[in-house]
């Protein structure tokens, strides 16, 4: 073996790759005795494939992607696990100025709650139907992503059918702002810094951070093949500890400027530090001519157990996959999904650090903006709820 302490991790240029970059650049990986290499990727499909074929030991992964790989939806069935979460939240929904103008005529107002914004959007959709205008086009980043489910959840709860009333496309984050400028999309749901970029170049405005739709929402994970985790439990545990410490570092206020500078480098996110700073500091400018506003718990890397891979997160993602027809419910799949997120491995890795850990692995997810909550132990009842 060339280097038995080498760990290769793939990532996509987004704000929430921060703990990976910090683990490498601030020496947390080295302190755990691992020789970490980060590889920047251009698509989520590449992340998945390069984990599957073993180019990457682990990756910055969309939470639902780990589940899709485990269940083998649309691709090879490769048991994949998520033993750590790479933070909470960090996404927002942005719309073009022309859509925003139409929404304000129907009662939308900057900084308002997602319910009133969604109601305004619904009125715009109905008006366009009456006028025989083509449906609005929304974009997100990948079919198996929190972005897809958050956007759909919001639209559906506000009376807009995401499959019938609008067109819903995938557009890679770096291409979204141009697509909006050229009028190809009217709105999108994406992670930072892409919403802030759209605002800063005057192309769009942020209508809602997705944490207003689901507070402390699940987002990216550290994903790896189960096979690698079983073969190299030592490396995985060291990586979990390094990322845990890196995530703590990211949240210290005095480090935030340095974090923005680190991420702004072309080999990482490659966006202006000032834009990255907005998401890091939880202060977003919603309108090109507006002031930055504080958005509590918009993006967390460490606080509120933000690195803990709750089994209930995996199960909520699965409920959305079923809801939107990506997969049919089965009790067998349910068990596999539950075993995809691995709080047990997280606990095991962090045991030497003597840190506070949640008492349970799963919990009732509260606070969805439509008043619903998700009880993972009443999974089928949740699916059967009228919407």
């Amino acid at each position, binding site marked *: 073996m060339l280097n038995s302490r080498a760990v290769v991790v793939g990532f996509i240029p987004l704000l929430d790759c921060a703990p990976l970059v910090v683990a490498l650049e601030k020496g947390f990986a080295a302190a755990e005795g691992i020789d970490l290499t980060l590889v920047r990727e*251009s698509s989520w499909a590449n992340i998945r494939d*390069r984990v599957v074929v073993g180019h990457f030991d682990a990756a910055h992964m969309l939470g639902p992607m780990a589940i899709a790989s485990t269940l083998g939806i*649309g691709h090879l069935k490769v048991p994949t696990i998520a033993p750590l979460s790479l933070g909470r939240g960090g996404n927002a929904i942005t719309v073009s100025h022309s859509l925003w103008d139409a929404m304000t005529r129907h009662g939308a107002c900057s900084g308002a709650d997602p319910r009133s914004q969604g109601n305004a959007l619904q009125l715009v959709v109905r008006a366009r139907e009456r006028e025989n205008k083509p449906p609005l086009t929304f974009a997100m980043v990948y*079919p198996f992503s929190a972005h897809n489910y958050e956007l759909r959840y919001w639209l559906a709860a506000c009376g807009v059918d995401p499959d019938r009333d609008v067109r819903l496309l995938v557009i890679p984050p770096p291409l979204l702002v141009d697509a909006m400028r050229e009028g190809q999309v009217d709105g999108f749901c994406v992670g930072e810094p892409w919403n802030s970029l759209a605002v800063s170049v005057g192309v769009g405005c942020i209508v809602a951070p997705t944490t207003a739709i689901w507070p402390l929402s699940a987002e990216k994970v550290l994903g790896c093949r189960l096979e690698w985790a079983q073969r190299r439990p030592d490396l995985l545990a060291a990586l979990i500890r390094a990322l845990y410490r890196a995530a703590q570092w990211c949240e210290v206020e005095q480090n935030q400027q340095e974090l923005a500078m680190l991420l702004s480098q072309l080999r990482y996110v490659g966006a202006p530090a000032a834009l990255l700073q907005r998401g890091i500091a939880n202060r977003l400018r919603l309108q090109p001519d507006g002031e930055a506003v504080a958005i509590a718990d918009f993006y967390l890397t460490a606080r509120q157990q933000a690195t803990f891979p709750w089994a209930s997160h995996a199960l909520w993602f699965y409920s959305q996959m079923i809801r939107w027809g990506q997969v049919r419910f089965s009790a067998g799949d349910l068990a596999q999904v539950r075993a995809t997120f691995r709080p047990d491995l997280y606990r095991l890795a962090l045991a030497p650090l003597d840190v506070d850990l949640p008492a349970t692995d799963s919990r009732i997810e509260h606070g969805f903006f439509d008043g619903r909550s998700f009880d993972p132990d009443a999974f089928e009842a949740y699916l059967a709820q009228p919407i």
Partner: protein
Amino acid sequence: MSENRPSNDTALHLLIVDQNVMRAAVLEEGLRESGYVKVTILRDMQNLLRRIVDIDPDVIFIDLENPNRDVLEQMFQVSRVVRRPVAMFVDRSDADMIEAAVDAGVGAYVVDGLRKERIKSVLDTAVSRFRAFNKLREELDQARQALDERKLVERAKGILMKERGLSEEAAYSLLRKAAMNENRKLTEVAQSVVTAARLLR
């Protein structure tokens, strides 16, 4: 079902989605040499879905550097317009072939229902053409580097000739001797001379 498609393999309609003109050409040529006559190249990423519906391919190749891979995957997930292609194969026995494709940097999407043996050879061709292109690109990079290094040595020689009144030959052997004595590469010594000259100017 796709089995009512032409049974002759070379009648498969192949689509190449690649913004790199040269690589797309290398792949197209390889496919045509193997007897495939229906090969289309798509470079423009605008209206990808519409174009794919019109072209109606059996197999789609896309380079892995292309972020639009995620766009393709979603179309295949949800679209009712496109005949449903799936990502390469969804069967564990094909892991080797997937690995070869990912290594070479090509992604393939195959219309659902096409028998595996019908596409094996076209996939092999794509993988080997991508490899050939990668090798070509590597060689080009090396050639460019060699050229850069030669230019550097030329500049160092010129500096020595001017500053120390040496002939070209003497300047060159001075550089070589310094490299040997210091156990460094000729280009490293040349770089030091060029840097020093700039600093002393």
